[in-house]
């Protein structure tokens, strides 16, 4: 049903004559034609992501650390993909009526982009990562670190959350951090969520920035700091029995003595609640200690190549490739629409320069999964005006590509073959050094 008043108000400026019914009909049809309703799962997914980012923001945005945070402004992230959430909710609804079917996981699969850094993580963790197997129970929810992996770019932590029986849990989001030696925090980079398995467990992979690790230790001693677990669950407070922890809290126990649980209604939908489960305040956040072997090798091209296009400029500082991810470090000042891309092995990849456009001069890095690329790299900078020259910066990365998907641990232990790289392209080449740390 079209709201006549709304149409009248919304498009009044487009009707010179209010009695012109034909124009009115066109406006009516255009209004209908362009209407679209976002999928419900999109809002759920956004909520989870915003909360995760907010938690990360609160954690790292402290005086003296602002520059580090600014640099990450719009770096592409792996998201709790809304598709996985849709599939998850749909599958749960389906199977709730058909009883539980062990093959649920076949209907629920996250579809990461091929160049997402995280696309390689499951196999990397399975083949090269180390089993950890430490757990903690919070209010009936058990968090277990299954495997971990560390190289010069990232520490990857695969963990799973097992909800207590009897709860219709659609999704979970864990607010956590990772600390290295002397409690030094490693910055969180991406979260990679998997749909629940047939046991209703939620498996996740989190990556943390390891670029600040000093030296070449054989292993890293780490602590996973769990601040809270947010649970998207079916609860209808007036009718359904609440989980035991909520009942405990409702009996007026001192907040420092019991897990603190709050419930929020994210969408005005009373049937789906978000429960936030926190460790007892008395003890601080929950901590799980573990150690993981550190693989320091990386393929690095240090460029510091500056390219000017019109009033924009961009400096390619370096490219660092490890099995966990490929990072392109950039800084510069660009127009918001300036298209930047690079190619390697015949494949082209766009670089999102939105952060540089929004923040002006900002260092940033961009994450891809290009560990198995061997060929020459080529960054291209198209002209701002038609007919102008496209500028290129070309360079090789030293050493053979990694091949960590063969299922062999030693497959990642590539032997570096050092080459002398050169930079070619329009403009004056700047000194370039590349290294292959091992």
């Amino acid at each position, binding site marked *: 049903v079209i709201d006549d008043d709304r149409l009248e108000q919304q498009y009044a400026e487009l009707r010179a004559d209010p009695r012109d019914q034909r124009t009115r009909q066109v406006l009516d049809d*255009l209004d*209908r034609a*362009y209407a*679209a309703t976002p999928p419900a799962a999109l809002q759920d997914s*956004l909520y989870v992501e915003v909360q995760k980012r907010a938690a990360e923001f609160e954690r790292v945005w402290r005086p003296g650390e602002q520059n580090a945070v600014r640099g990450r402004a719009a770096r592409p992230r792996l998201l709790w993909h809304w598709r996985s959430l849709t599939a998850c909710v749909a599958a749960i609804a389906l199977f709730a009526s058909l009883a539980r079917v062990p093959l649920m996981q076949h209907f629920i699969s996250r579809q990461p982009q091929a160049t997402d850094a995280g696309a390689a993580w499951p196999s990397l963790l399975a083949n090269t990562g180390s089993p950890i197997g430490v757990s903690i129970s919070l209010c009936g929810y058990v968090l277990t670190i299954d495997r971990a992996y560390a190289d010069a770019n990232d520490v990857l932590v695969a963990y799973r959350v097992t909800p207590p029986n009897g709860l219709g849990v659609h999704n979970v989001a864990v607010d956590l951090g990772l600390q290295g030696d002397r409690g030094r925090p490693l910055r969180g980079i991406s979260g990679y969520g998997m749909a629940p398995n047939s046991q209703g467990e939620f498996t996740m992979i989190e990556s943390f920035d390891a670029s600040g690790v000093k030296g070449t230790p054989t292993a890293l001693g780490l602590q996973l700091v769990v601040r809270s677990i947010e649970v998207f669950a079916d609860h209808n407070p007036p009718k359904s029995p609440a989980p035991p922890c909520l009942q405990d809290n409702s009996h007026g126990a001192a907040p420092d003595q019991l897990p603190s649980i709050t419930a929020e209604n994210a969408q005005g939908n009373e049937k789906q609640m978000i429960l936030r489960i926190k460790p007892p305040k008395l003890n601080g956040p929950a901590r799980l200690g573990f150690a993981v072997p550190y693989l320091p090798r990386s393929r690095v091209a240090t460029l510091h190549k500056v390219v000017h296009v019109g009033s924009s400029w961009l400096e390619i500082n370096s490219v660092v490739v490890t099995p966990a991810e490929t990072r392109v470090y950039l800084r510069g000042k660009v127009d918001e629409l300036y*298209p930047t891309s690079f190619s390697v092995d015949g494949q082209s990849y766009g670089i999102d320069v939105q952060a540089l456009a929004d923040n002006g001069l900002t260092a940033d890095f961009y994450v891809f999964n290009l560990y198995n690329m061997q060929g020459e790299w080529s960054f291209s900078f198209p002209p701002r005006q038609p007919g102008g020259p496209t500028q290129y910066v070309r360079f090789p990365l030293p050493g053979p590509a990694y091949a960590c998907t063969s299922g062999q641990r030693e497959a990642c232990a590539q032997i570096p073959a050092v080459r002398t790289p050169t930079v070619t392209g329009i403009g004056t080449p700047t000194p370039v050094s590349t290294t292959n740390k091992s």
Partner: protein
Amino acid sequence: MARPMPELYAGTMHWRAEDDDRVLDDQALVARALAHPARFAPIYQRYLTRVYAYLRTRTRTEEDAADITQQVFLRALDALPSYRGKEGEFVAWLFRIARNAATDYHRRQRETITWDLLPEALHPAMAEDMDAAILRREAADRLRDVLRTLDPEQRELLALRFAARLSSAEIAALLGAREGTIKKRLTRLIHRVREQYRD
């Protein structure tokens, strides 16, 4: 003494009568989100449908539109500290991010999206009777034919006006044009659509 369960929940509800974000203007919401990023939710709740509807006109599938919509709001959240807009400018800033995201999408797709996918184009509602459904489908086909004759700039203008529901002033702020110019272009465009639509 035990508190009854409904009170426990009521006290922690996200929407509370005395704290209703829906009555606040954009500037107030932005200020809140800057102080506490978790309070970004009211912003995307306010604009989710409009951003999605706009991106639906710029993408091939509903899934792509949803993906990019999520990216847009997360970009906006990331970029919020750099937002320096005055009152009424937030929506133009947000849709600038949406347009950039759509541009990135097209670049990644390496192909031109035709306008055949025009909206959910007048899909008949389930409850509609058969005659009404047929009439509506015919109207959709006619409208699609008309829109095919427009150039991309004109179609973008219609998408911003009817899908994103931006006013002429907001479109002008977004495109860096004068409000009067946008109003004239839209009026001419509607006139043209009307004439062709009738034929």
